[in-house]
């Protein structure tokens, strides 16, 4: 499959397996060493990888800036949490059920707002996020403002809280790997070609025979599924879900920042971006002199990237290390 996809680009390079292998090996470290705090840190990093990789599909490949993307994370989280608590199903079933509301919103609301372009679309996604958050705050069946929380005994069904946390971690890692794989496959498919054509010139795309409405909705759905699964894992591990943490605008923007930092429209960009972002954050927070100014410094760095390094870290690496070009997509 890969060989034929690359057949005309010269020698096939095993970019995807290498990338997946690196992520998988890193993700396996805490399981091998049994280090829970590394596990917690990587859980968060894998979450960021998933969110950034997903938003990259709609924003990077298709050119639609989604500010409210975290809405899918929240919907998946709520869907799964509610399923576990009310229906009493197993986490894996619940995670799958959590995807349903996310996909529904992506199809119905996405189908409508994807007609908008540029800043209008970005603002609409923001509106959707805020509307959903306000709605969930008032929606009593899902706990309203209080949200939902597990009784600790729930984790007994998964062999105790510790192994539940491990399971959530493995699940999260698989979701991240899945998101990367999906991103790669989209990038290298006819579908992805349609997305990029839409990004470059939607009017030309139509004349070339592409149905932009359906193509964009499909991309939106793909970019909604993985955050929904990540939300399921995240809130399962958390034990509590409430509107504020499920629909957090800051986290939404955080994933866009990661995409830009890593390199927009590339497969590896969100992964590298997430790693760099986490490293940077950790550095700022543990450095006493910088800790209180961490937000300011983050802002300055973001500004520098936006103004001077538009192609992100992937771009920087590719221009500095020509040999890396074929290996970094």
């Amino acid at each position, binding site marked *: 499959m890969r060989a034929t996809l690359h057949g005309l680009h010269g020698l096939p390079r095993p970019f995807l397996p290498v990338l997946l292998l690196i992520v998988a090996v890193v993700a396996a470290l805490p399981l091998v060493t049994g280090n829970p705090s590394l596990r917690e840190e990587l859980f968060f990093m894998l979450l960021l990888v998933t969110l950034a990789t997903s938003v990259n599909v709609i924003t990077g490949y298709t050119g639609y800036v989604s500010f409210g993307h975290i809405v899918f994370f929240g919907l998946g989280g709520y869907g799964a949490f509610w399923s576990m608590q009310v229906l009493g199903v197993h986490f894996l079933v619940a995670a799958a059920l959590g995807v349903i509301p996310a996909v529904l919103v992506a199809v119905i609301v996405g189908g409508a707002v994807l007609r908008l372009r540029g800043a209008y679309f970005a603002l609409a996604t923001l509106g959707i996020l805020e509307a959903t958050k306000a709605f969930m705050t008032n929606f009593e069946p899902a706990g309203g403002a209080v949200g939902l929380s597990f009784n600790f005994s729930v984790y007994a069904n998964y062999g105790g809280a510790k192994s539940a946390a491990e399971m959530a971690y493995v699940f999260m890692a698989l979701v991240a790997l899945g998101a990367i794989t999906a991103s790669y496959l989209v990038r290298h498919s006819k579908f992805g070609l349609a997305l990029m054509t839409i990004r470059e010139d939607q009017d030309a795309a139509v004349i070339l025979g592409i149905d932009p409405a359906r193509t964009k909705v499909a991309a939106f759905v793909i970019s909604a599924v993985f955050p929904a699964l990540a939300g399921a894992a995240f809130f399962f591990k958390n034990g509590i879900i409430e509107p504020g943490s499920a629909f957090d605008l800051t986290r939404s*923007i955080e994933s*866009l920042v990661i995409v830009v930092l890593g390199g927009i429209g590339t497969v590896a960009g969100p992964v590298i971006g997430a790693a760099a972002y986490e490293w940077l954050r950790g550095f700022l927070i543990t450095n006493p002199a910088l800790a209180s100014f961490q937000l300011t410094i983050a802002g300055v760095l973001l500004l520098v990237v936006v103004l001077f390094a538009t192609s992100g870290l992937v771009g920087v690496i590719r221009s500095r290390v020509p040999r890396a070009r074929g290996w970094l997509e």
Partner: protein
Amino acid sequence: MNLGALLPSAIDGLLLGCVYGLAAMGLTLIFGVTRVVNLAHGPVIAMGMFVVLAVASGAGLNPYIGVLLAAVVGLAAGVVIYVVAVDRVINAPELTTLLATFAVNLIIIGTATTLLTTSPRAVDVDLGALRAGNVTVMGTHVVAVVIAVAAAGALYAFLFRTRLGKSVRAVAADRAAAELMGINSRRMLALAFGLGTALAMTAGALLATMFSFNVLSGGTYETKSFVIVVLGGLGNPTGALIGGLVIGLLEGVTAVVIPVSWVPVIEYAVFVLILLVRPRGLLGSRQ
């Protein structure tokens, strides 16, 4: 449901709507001229609040001097933001300018949180109240409306009566053509950013005379401004003012018939709906 609250709430809503409208005018002016959605809008509003705090509580002066000062500081701050963060990417795709202004947001919020903490602040301004039946109108609100309307009027006078203002409009209409007419378009873009920021800071300053606030308070008004701006048509200052009134009224009146906590749900639903049905806004008919 008790309709006794209908009239007072409608009046309160309209009064506050004027101030919302003023903040939104700032956002929409910047968009109209520079095509940039300013994500630093909220922090800028908060800066306006703190200018009043500094003048009233810090220097012990009349808080309305703070309102005036906020406008001046806003003009300067907006120009600085434009030159530092926006000018270089003024022709880049949306994501770039959105993130550039968001970076400014982070810088302001980060610095302000560190220096000023997130503790709640209040400026106690007591101008009495007008009362008639069950309607109470606070003096501060009346003054805020007067100032907001005066500021909006001043903006219009500037844009439509002065050469400089017309130059700003010319740049908004066609940047290249304005340049051909000898207008320094970068200077006008910076000026527009300054004016928009001045309006936002003035609105923030007025809000500080009415409500308590903290470093992060701008966020609420920022999202409200987005709603208003879309309602009135992106880039349309009159639309923003009217949109402000509509949102103010909507907030006041819907709260009478439904639980107040549902008001934001309605507000955002209206926002998304308008984007879908009439992306140019209820009043936007320009293109």
